[in-house]
């Protein structure tokens, strides 16, 4: 599982110029989209003094740390140190960069250098993400007839294909749902599935 891709939300939930917190296995990440739409995922730790970069702000094609405003370009290299405006930051100052891509409306993250293939979700369209207050076992229980392939659970809803990309966060599970059929129907069904999984926790 060393270089696997982990889903970190749907493209539609990360607009231009926004940064959010994410995770790859145990590593905490800052995932952001530049003004022109480029996606990046970095270790959530500013190389200067360790502030979480997910608390930072996007300006154009850079993400700035909220503590001292150090700005980093989409390649992770520091491009500006406001305390020393005349200085060109040394190349060694660089955020720890992960691979970050989006396919079929899902944002995926993997460590740099990993060459594992992305799960194939072609033909499906993103519906929405939900957070289930339950463990993976309760979620599995609420999905009879679904087949698990790594992080993706596949099944049918009234004859239309549904895929759920599952992100296990311990006490809760993030589910990013995709489908071929009616989005409203998939969305309603998701609500029911969530209730079932969360009741499973209480039972």
């Amino acid at each position, binding site marked *: 599982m060393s270089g696997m891709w982990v889903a970190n939300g749907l493209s539609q939930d990360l607009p231009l110029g926004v940064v959010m917190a994410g995770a790859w296995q145990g590593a905490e990440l800052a995932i952001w989209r530049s003004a022109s739409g480029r996606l990046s995922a970095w270790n959530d730790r500013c190389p200067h003094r360790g502030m979480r970069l997910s608390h930072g702000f996007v300006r154009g094609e850079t993400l700035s740390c909220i503590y001292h405003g150090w700005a980093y370009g989409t390649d992770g290299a520091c491009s500006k140190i406001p*305390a020393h405006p005349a200085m060109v930051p040394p190349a060694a*100052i660089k955020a720890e960069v992960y691979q970050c891509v989006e396919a079929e409306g899902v944002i995926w993250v993997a460590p740099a250098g990993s060459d594992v293939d992305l799960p194939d979700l072609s033909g499906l369209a993103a519906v929405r993400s939900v957070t289930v207050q339950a463990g993976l076992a309760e979620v599995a229980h609420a999905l009879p007839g679904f087949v698990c392939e790594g992080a993706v659970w596949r099944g049918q809803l009234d004859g239309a294909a549904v895929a759920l990309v599952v992100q296990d966060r311990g006490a809760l599970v993030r589910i990013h749902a995709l489908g071929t059929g009616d989005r409203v129907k998939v969305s309603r069904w998701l609500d029911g599935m969530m209730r079932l999984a969360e009741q499973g926790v209480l039972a």
Partner: protein
Amino acid sequence: MIPQAVLNEWYPVAMIALVGPRPGRQTQLLGSDIAVFLEDGQIVVQGAKGQRLAVTLRYGHVWACPGTPAHDLFPIPEADQPGRRLVDCGVVRVKCSPLRAVENFLDIAHFPFVHTDVLGAEPHTEVGRYEVQIREDSDEVWATKVHFYQPQAAKSAAGGIVTEYMYRVAAPTAAVLYKTCPNQPDAWDVIGIFVQPLTEEFCEVWPWMALFDDTTPQADLIQFQQMIFLQDRSILENQIPRLLPLDPGKEIPTQADLTSIAYRRWLKRKGLTYGAQMVAA
């Protein structure tokens, strides 16, 4: 095991004005339960085993030493200067290393980003060269000739000015800053932060001021300082790692961080490692 050097220092544990009779203030110092209360008109700091800690009452606060005091509490001569108004600003609880709280207090480069339009504003972000030394006579860290542009340096400042600062680390978890005073150009405003190390990753910060300012209502002064520290808290609770690294490890300091570098070096040299991370990570 807490190093003896740590135990032999003074730490703030309460505001004098708020100490009442038993059970008094139930709190923690270096991970141990303590109680601060009034008994026969005296303020007592009592440890978990019933032992009494050494106590000093100064600068509006109760200071306790869990070991054998290595020295007297540091002096702030301005506290006794006629005409100064001494203001206790209450307490801010922060989920961070006490050392991180002090380091942040010594930092100016964050003003435009964390205290935007109050203590700093873009594009005035440059931190010029300043001087830092570990003074051998007093055994304190000092930063002097620090200049910074500020849109509203104090409650009594109307517009933007270049403020001069001096910073001083007087104890492992206490620092004092001196800044040019908008009301009296030849004097310095004095602001302290006294940090109570509850545990290595949890502290209470007591800001304190000695100002030449007769006009600003007390409530406004306190509110101003509280606002500043609440802004700092959002930073301090989100730094990785939680403990202060005494060796840079993954961190990259620049010239603007000279005070922080000296503070970390001073802590390391004196073995004041409570709240510090010794392994580079």
